[in-house]
């Protein structure tokens, strides 16, 4: 409403400081990523050829333009290592998100059906592990999954296996780690939509003769789709770029793009290729990011 204008003018001034901060430390750095992704690798410190040197004026700008190269991007497309790690990232993210949805939905649904008094407490219980360190939670699983860890001991003593199973450095360990780490991100938006749902809707459906499973499929699930979409995107996007979990839990024979980028940057010191990889990763995420932004905005409008 326009009457809120009186309050809006001073409120807008609040934007100045964070605006400048984000311009300087978010947007400008992207310029650097873009610039370096287009320059040549060099064995130097920093390890890339400067794209242009401001001290030489316009002439430098011209030589710089001719020196710009798409070599790094060409390399990304032609080398199977990169193509595979992009593909692997997408596959891992899709599979993990699907598992998260299947596990997270019943939990969110269970919490939404608790008496209102208990709901915040249950949500707190879901969120608290998220507050404890991400790395610690992965490490906790290494403890359990290692060769002489608790899981193997338990399986051995139950005589389910005769020799210890190799859990670590496998895809199953990685999926376990991802699901474990991202579960709260899936549950949170799901719970938010399920809890907001009018209980009378489900009551009306069963009053009109729908059995419980039908009620769920015809009423509850369709109405919770905004939450499903938010949860899926909230998990999918960061999983694509995930580094720590695959690095610690998965085997080293196939890498996700986050790991490849890390490797190029820290081990191979190939900054231009790492920058190009970052740009491609970002492009991969543009579509889901735009969808996510739309959803967020719709939810903010709805809250008003």
């Amino acid at each position, binding site marked *: 409403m326009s009457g809120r204008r009186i309050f809006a003018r001073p409120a807008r001034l609040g*934007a100045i400081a964070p605006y400048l901060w*984000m311009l300087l430390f*978010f947007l400008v750095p992207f310029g650097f990523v873009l610039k370096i992704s287009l320059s040549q690798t060099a064995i130097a410190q920093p390890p890339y050829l400067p794209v242009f040197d401001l001290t030489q004026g316009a002439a430098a700008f011209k030589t710089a333009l001719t020196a710009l190269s798409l070599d790094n991007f060409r390399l990304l497309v032609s080398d199977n290592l990169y193509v595979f790690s992009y593909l692997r990232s997408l596959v891992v993210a899709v599979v993990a998100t699907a598992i998260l949805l299947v596990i997270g939905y019943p939990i969110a649904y269970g919490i939404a059906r608790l008496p209102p008094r208990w709901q915040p407490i249950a949500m707190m219980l*879901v969120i608290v592990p998220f507050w404890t360190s991400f790395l610690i939670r992965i490490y906790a699983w290494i403890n359990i999954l290692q060769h002489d860890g608790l899981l193997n001991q338990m399986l051995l003593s139950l005589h389910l296996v005769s020799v210890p199973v190799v859990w670590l450095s496998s895809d199953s360990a990685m999926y376990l780690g991802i699901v474990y780490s991202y579960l709260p991100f899936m549950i949170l938006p799901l719970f938010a939509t399920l809890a907001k749902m009018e209980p009378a809707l*489900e009551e009306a459906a069963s009053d009109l003769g729908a059995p419980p499973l039908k009620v769920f499929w015809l009423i509850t699930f369709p109405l919770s789709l905004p939450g499903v979409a938010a949860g899926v995107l909230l998990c999918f996007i960061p999983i694509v770029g995930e580094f720590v979990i695959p690095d610690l839990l998965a085997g080293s024979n196939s890498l996700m793009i986050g790991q490849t980028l890390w490797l190029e940057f820290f081990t191979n010191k190939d900054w231009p290729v790492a920058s190009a990889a970052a740009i491609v990763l970002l492009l991969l995420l543009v579509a889901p990011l735009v969808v996510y932004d739309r959803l967020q905005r719709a939810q903010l409008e709805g809250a008003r």
Partner: protein
Amino acid sequence: MNGPRGLSPFNVASLALGLAFLYLPIVILMIYSFNASRLVTVWGGWSLRWYQEFFQDRAMIEAGWMSLRVGATSATIATLLGTLAAVALSRGEGFKGRTLFSGMLYAPLVMPEVITGLSLLLLFVAVNAERGFWTVTIAHTTLTMCFVAVVVQSRLTSLDRSLEEAAMDLGCSPARAFLAVTLPLIAPAIAAGWMLAFTLSLDDLVIASFTTGPGSATLPIRIYSEVRLGVKPEINAICTLVIALISMVIVVASLATKLSGAQRETAAPL
């Protein structure tokens, strides 16, 4: 399923299994931090041995201290800037560059950490900044500001705007109305935002790895390099300490919000 609002056995089972899944690994880790034996296979009785070892590990202690300093500093700056941003976005109506602003502000929320870390490092290298405490602090502020903004903005959105109008009607200038009415009511959200920023900073490995310099590793960086070499009982002890610290912050904060007034939530539907 009994009545649509009741809990079915399926609901109970999924809740119990879900919570067990979330908590069991952490509980096991905490228990093993008190194991006297070096081997996980053997329970050697209760002992504080690994805690002693940690307190003698200078590098680890220094990394922990670095993390606490970075966490507190970046959380404070992020809370300040994030709150300002939330106020501008929820009360500023339309203004020039609003879309770019909210886009930039919220992008780190979903941006892969490797990209944020890489881009900031390239900036720091380009301007020849000495990498260490301040570069990590700046990076973490950039990362956590959006989380603060989200928490504070959602509180501001649920706040009845006629409260601010009532304050103005009763003689407050807009700035006074904000200080006298809005700020006290969003204070719990600001505190929650700070805590979130602090724990996120304490938690971050990737961005810190990119932006820190030699000799100023944060705790996650140290833990990570140890974990890569295999399980070490000392790490269990450190993790338990970090969990204890964070739980304490959460308990203190929730007590503080309880004491500061139960009106916080009920103010919304007014």
